[in-house]
């Protein structure tokens, strides 16, 4: 297994947010984490990369227990994180944004160079010296993914990549994610848009009120409209 999460519990202050979350991601898999807003998708990701101070449980990444490590060490192991809201450094140029994400080459993960990323996201190549703050939402979403790929991760957590993007840009995002998969990156993507998730994912988990309440292939999910409708409330 690429990533195994067991009994993950998280708190914000007095509020208990995640309850015994557990899921797995296989080598080269794209797994969707589905659920409504506030269900705990982002908190799950933030907990995995150590951005939530109060968490317990076991997080195994490539066979190593990373649950007690600080954020930057987890990321340096090759576990990339793309946050929601993109969080581009708006004062820095595209090149400088990528520089912040740069990490050394890793033996078991695809190596990304600026040139390769500009091929994946041609728009970025045309605006290397533009400050992040003067880019459109779609361009920023591409930059935030490219920035994380500069760290040569073997697995990427993608938090709501389609949020706030026009349908056309979302379709480009589908292509980019499938290309990443082809290159050998494992991906966990959190989503509310089931159409989008279906186009990219091998398997899906549903999270509801901080608990995992379904796990299976996309076909299995489609054969269980009761679960889908109860928790995704389509």
């Amino acid at each position, binding site marked *: 297994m690429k990533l195994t999460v067991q009994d993950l519990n998280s708190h914000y202050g007095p509020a208990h947010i995640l309850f015994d979350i557990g899921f797995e991601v296989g080598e080269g898999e794209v797994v969707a984490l589905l659920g409504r807003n506030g269900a705990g998708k982002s908190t799950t990701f933030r907990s995995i990369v150590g951005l939530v101070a109060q968490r317990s449980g076991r997080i195994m990444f490539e066979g190593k227990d990373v649950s007690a490590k600080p954020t930057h060490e987890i990321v340096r192991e090759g576990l990339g994180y793309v946050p929601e809201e993109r969080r581009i450094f708006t004062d820095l140029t595209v090149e400088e944004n990528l520089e912040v994400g740069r990490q050394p080459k890793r033996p078991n993960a695809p190596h990304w160079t600026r040139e390769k990323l500009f091929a994946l996201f041609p728009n970025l190549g045309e605006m290397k010296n533009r400050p992040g703050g003067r880019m459109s939402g779609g361009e920023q979403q591409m930059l935030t993914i490219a920035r994380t790929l500069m760290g040569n991760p073997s697995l990427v957590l993608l938090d709501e990549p389609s949020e706030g993007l026009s349908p056309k840009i979302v379709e480009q995002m589908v292509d980019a994610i499938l290309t990443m998969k082809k290159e050998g990156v494992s991906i966990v993507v959190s989503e509310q848009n089931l159409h989008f998730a279906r186009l990219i994912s091998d398997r899906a988990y549903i999270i509801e009120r901080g608990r995992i309440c379904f796990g299976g292939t996309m076909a299995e999910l489609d054969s269980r409209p009761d679960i889908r409708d109860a928790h995704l*409330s389509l």
Partner: protein
Amino acid sequence: MSVAPPLLAVEGLTKSYGGIHAVRGVSFSLRAGEILALIGPNGAGKSTCFDMLNGQNKPDSGHVRLLGEETTGKKPREIWRMGVGRTFQITATFATMTVRENVQVALISHGKQLYNLFGSAPNFDRNEAGRLLELVGMGGYADRPCGELAYGDLKRLELAVALANEPKLLLMDEPTAGMAPRERVDLMRLTAQIAREKSIGVLFTEHDMDVVFEHADRIIVLNRGTLIAEGSPAEVRGNPQVQAVYLGEGLVYDARHREGTSA
């Protein structure tokens, strides 16, 4: 077509930043009780346009009129006093106050009691606050701290706050962003129902085409600062230019309609 005078009339709205036109010559109108969607690619000028309507931003030229009265260049709080309520893309509420108190602040402002230093605010228009909360289905949450609410509930609270001054027009910036599909449908149905009952005009921006096609009476499409299309959902959907710049191949929104699982 319509004999009723326009509730909102926008004429030749233009704004540029550093020589680049963000919005150029945008004109449209909105009738009372009508639900109008403003869509377009990221960076097309939707937010700029929206901010010029609510007073957050001043146009370089052009006019915005509410029932014939000029609102161009007025401050947000002045536009609110003219009867324009709004909700934000990222909810803006008073996080340390309870749900009821959030509504009461709006009522206090509406009743021009802002500088009353000795009255009892907890008892201020309590019934009216309760009624507004019931209207949006938040009656049971009145005493909850606003900071504890789920996102969908915050959006409903914003709607209740926006209704506190009996508005004629509602401006909603991506009202369903960040919500689950069922919540989106619920919120927009509720909005539509209230708008029809009270004859309130609604203008909203949105990226979820399922929401737009289902709830908008009319759609206007913005691209690179200019309006490129206007019409009914069916018309806009079939417009090749809109498909080219915005809708794409319809993979990421249309499936639900095709499968017939639409709510």
